[in-house]
């Protein structure tokens, strides 16, 4: 008995619209964040993550309106990430209705941002996103490095150490994405997730690489993830949230 493992669909948002399309049967507007969020809520998603990939600074304001609109209609936890650079940005998103804010690159440039934001708003709303790539080590003792900019820029930081440091700084949760697996549909990097999960002590969301439902199960059992994040397998209608939960429950995982 205990807390259920969460399934979190992730939506990429550009200038207030969901990109890469969400293909539900009979959806009226595949780019409308409110309609998509409402669908996922009804389908049993435990939480939603919005990742803002808007390139231009001016259009970032539209994200605030998107978050406000979604939070007025969908009453499950909402995480917003992408382009969060300051305590003021965190505050703006929380005021708009986000329950958690995910900080990525800015945490690397300014590690104090995480401790400041956690002290101000509480650890429960501060997620640190760690994008990691396998670098060096051996098969028995692998190492991962933190990357930024979608895996293009190495930082020289060891991912396990960095994750622990961020948890100590006040991150209430870690969103760990394997840049090696992202987009490959070959499953999470469970060795990476497990290493961080066992070290950091705060909840871990596994991300990057989901291609089927067994990958979600493996993420929890092998990767020790507290939550699993996926995009395309749900957006393109290959699997429903309900099917994912049945599959996880059959593997002995507690789900809602």
């Amino acid at each position, binding site marked *: 008995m205990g807390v259920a493992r969460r399934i979190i669909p992730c939506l990429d948002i550009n200038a207030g619209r969901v990109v890469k399309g969400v293909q539900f049967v009979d959806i009226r507007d595949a780019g409308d964040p409110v309609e998509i969020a409402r669908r996922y809520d009804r389908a049993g998603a435990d939480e939603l993550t919005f990742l803002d990939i808007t390139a231009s600074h001016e259009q970032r304001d539209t994200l605030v309106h998107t978050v406000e609109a979604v939070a007025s209609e969908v*009453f499950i*936890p909402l995480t917003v990430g992408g382009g969060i650079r300051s305590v003021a940005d965190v505050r703006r998103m929380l005021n708009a209705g986000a*329950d958690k804010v995910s900080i990525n690159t800015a945490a690397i440039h300014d590690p104090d941002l995480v401790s400041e934001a956690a002290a101000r708003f509480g650890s*429960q709303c501060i997620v640190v996103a760690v994008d990691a790539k396998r670098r060096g080590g051996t098969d028995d003792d692998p190492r991962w490095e933190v990357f930024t900019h979608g895996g293009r820029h190495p930082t020289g930081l060891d991912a396990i150490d960095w994750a622990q440091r961020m948890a100590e700084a006040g991150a209430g949760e870690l969103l760990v994405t394997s840049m090696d697996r992202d987009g490959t549909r070959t499953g999470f990097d469970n060795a990476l997730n497990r290493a961080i999960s066992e070290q950091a002590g705060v909840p871990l969301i596994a991300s990057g690489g989901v291609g089927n439902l067994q990958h979600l199960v493996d993420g929890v059992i092998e990767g020790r993830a507290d939550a699993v994040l996926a995009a395309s397998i749900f957006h393109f209608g290959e699997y429903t949230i309900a099917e994912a939960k049945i599959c996880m429950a059959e593997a002995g995982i507690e789900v809602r």
Partner: protein
Amino acid sequence: MIAIIDYGMGNLRSVERALTHVGAAEVRVTDDPTVIEAADRVVFPGQGAVRDCMSALHRYELVDVLGRVMRDRPFLGICMGMQALMSRSEENDGVQALGYFDGTVRHFRHLTGGDPQLKIPHMGWNRLEQTRPHPLFAGIEPGTRFYFVHSYYVEPADASIIQGRSDYGAPFAAAIGADNVFATQFHPEKSQAPGLRLLENFLAWDGEPCS
């Protein structure tokens, strides 16, 4: 009118939106004691740690008005708004809280015993065992999951105020209440349909513990 007490701790808009969604006619997010005093119902939300919560309540000069409205009208504490009702927190070698209920706010490591599988904060959807019937549970199945996120939990001196329990390493008080006061450790405003139902029940509640 429903007053949501604003003392700078957490996402109050979610509570406001959820109450509006379930039909509340007038909801005010306020730090004004006069408005709080004039409210028919009061919601006391909050996130974070009790020490910060208490210093914010003192800074906003809300302790007195809270004490008054807790005596005579439907009152709902949420998350830290539940913890602050207790007499003390063990955090930072002891913090005095509002003392409406006798009991202690403790860190989760006492419950999880350092089990690395039981992460802190306790975050996610957990089952709520309804320990006794209460009007706020009307229409909610026993064992329904609600959304939690917290690192501290409440240990009341008098177990008879426990209205609901959840389990994380060991059972803990997830809902407490007496007379016109009810409080949840979970977030009804983030707990989808069951959470909205609890809020709807709160809007209809006359402040009597049992119907």
